[in-house]
């Protein structure tokens, strides 16, 4: 119950913020941070709960962005329809990658996700309707009813998406689905022998994770006013999407949230004070550091600290 009250509070606060006269840049930057929260949370449903490491987040996010674009261009559909279409297509992609590789060892799933990035990028580059290699420029609608600007509306939509993603992750984690996923991650053989339908659960996690990643990608074309394959399928996103839940902690839904907020802030800081290449290096180094020294992330460190101070 407290959780839902907190969610409502967040949405109300965001609504208030969006209606106020605060600098437009806040919403521009805030969109990026919120998108990071969705990506990290979505990744963790498959990576943290089930133990399958998705190296190809850009494939799903890119698929979401391009699906939204196609639906927008062909049907002039509103944003909500774009998001649903993106979620459906990316969710199906997740399911298909799962069907191919999830019966095998984890590394094959990971490589299959990298394969997906390249294949989708190649398809898009050769598809003139969506702009091919050069991409497309888009004009944003001037207003974002009921808010003052389109950017503010996108920000608000992202707040809702972030809250929804966290709520979904929390539901999965605390339900028997979450326990089943943990069981199959700990020992797939024992899970099968205790009645856990491991293949079904893995595919559900693949589909849900993929769908959320796609949904996060859907507003991108409108947010940027352009779309092109090289930035859409950029592998740098792949590392961030991995680093955030690992740094925050993979065992609990609050981990990706912490990781996303922390990493997004660090990235902003480094880009502004030093350089953008170094920003990317910092993410990689932090990832390796945490994986070696604190594999349970910040959540794990907190738990250990609580246990030892009893």
């Amino acid at each position, binding site marked *: 119950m407290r959780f839902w009250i907190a969610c409502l509070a967040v949405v109300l606060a965001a609504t208030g913020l969006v209606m106020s006269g605060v600098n437009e840049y806040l919403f521009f930057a805030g969109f990026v941070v919120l998108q990071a929260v969705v990506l990290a949370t979505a990744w963790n449903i498959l990576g943290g709960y089930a133990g399958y490491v998705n190296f190809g987040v850009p494939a799903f996010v890119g698929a979401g962005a391009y699906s939204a674009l196609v639906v927008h261009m062909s049907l002039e559909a509103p944003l909500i329809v774009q998001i649903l279409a993106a979620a459906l297509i990316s969710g199906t992609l997740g399911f298909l990658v799962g069907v191919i590789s999830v019966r095998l060892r984890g590394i094959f799933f990971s490589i*299959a996700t990298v394969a997906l990035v390249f294949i989708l990028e190649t398809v898009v580059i050769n598809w003139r309707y969506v702009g091919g290699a050069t991409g497309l420029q888009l004009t944003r609608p001037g207003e974002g009813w009921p808010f003052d600007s389109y950017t503010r509306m996108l920000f608000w939509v992202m707040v809702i998406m972030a809250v929804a993603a966290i709520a979904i992750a929390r539901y999965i984690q605390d339900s028997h689905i979450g326990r089943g996923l943990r069981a199959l991650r*700990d020992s797939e053989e024992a899970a099968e022998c205790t009645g856990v339908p491991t293949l079904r659960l893995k595919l559900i996690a693949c589909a849900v994770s993929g769908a959320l990643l796609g949904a996060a990608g859907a507003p991108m074309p409108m947010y940027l006013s352009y779309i092109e394959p090289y930035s859409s399928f950029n592998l740098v996103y792949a590392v961030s999407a991995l680093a955030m839940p690992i740094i925050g902690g993979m065992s609990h839904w609050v981990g990706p949230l912490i990781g996303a907020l922390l990493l997004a802030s660090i990235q902003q800081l480094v880009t502004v004070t030093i350089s953008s290449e170094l920003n990317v290096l910092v993410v990689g180094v932090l990832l*390796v550091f945490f994986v070696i020294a604190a594999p349970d992330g910040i959540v794990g460190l907190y738990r250990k600290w609580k246990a030892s101070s009893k």
Partner: protein
Amino acid sequence: MAFSFDLLLEAIIFGLLLGCFYAAVSIGLSIAFGLLDVPHVAHPAVLILGSYGVYLLGQYGVDPILAGLMLTPFFFLFGAALYRMYYETFEKRGNSAAVSGLAFFFGIAFIIEVLLVVAFGVDQRSAEAAYIGGSLKIDDLRIPYRLLVAFGVALFLTITLTVYLSKTFTGRAIKAVGQDEAALRLMGADPVRIKQFAFGLATAVNALAGAMLIIVAPVEPTMDRIYIGRTFCVVVLAGLGSMSGTLAAALILGVTESIVLMFFGASWAPAVAFGLLLVVLAVRPKGLFGR
């Protein structure tokens, strides 16, 4: 491009040469992942690192192949150290560290790529040698010398390693260590040291393969991404644990890529390796000769 048998033949020949090159580039992964079961997704990044090392030495006038040979001892040590770090931190922890182990190598690959960008920039770098530039002419066929050189060295590498792993004691121990550690221990051999040696060997091979890479084409730091596709495609298609299969699988990939390149254009070629990989995973994950 219109179809003609002449073009097909040219594509096949080119593809066979390319395939042999892919074999050399993948054999390190065949050892590290196929035999030792290490999720070494950083293998292509180390390969590119080797290419850049060769480039650097080339700036001082060192021939690429010689540079590759010079780098092998350093790469061997690097590989041995990397495995040791992986073993102490992850392999010991068992199944619970599977995610961390994968993330570790992914992070290492990424760090290598970024460091290369910081050090050398994003532009392409090439190597220079007498054999890079001219071509051999047979009838209407033009075969670039650099491909022939790479083909020769690659063939030599592949055959030497395959023979080493089947005929020598250490080689056979390496082949056995992935499957039956207990038996090795009973024979008095230390599986961890054998794995460390094997991983070092696989990384040392990468130095030479990296030289091959920069001879065949210019390199740039993000090339490790597509080589993840090519090397894993070869290793999976061959079948984990099969060294001789590596050459066959690489030739298949080389010819397929070459044909696609010839008849469908360069923009489709990168997807071939990844597409083939997905097909193999879906249809026959054991590969052609896997255990």
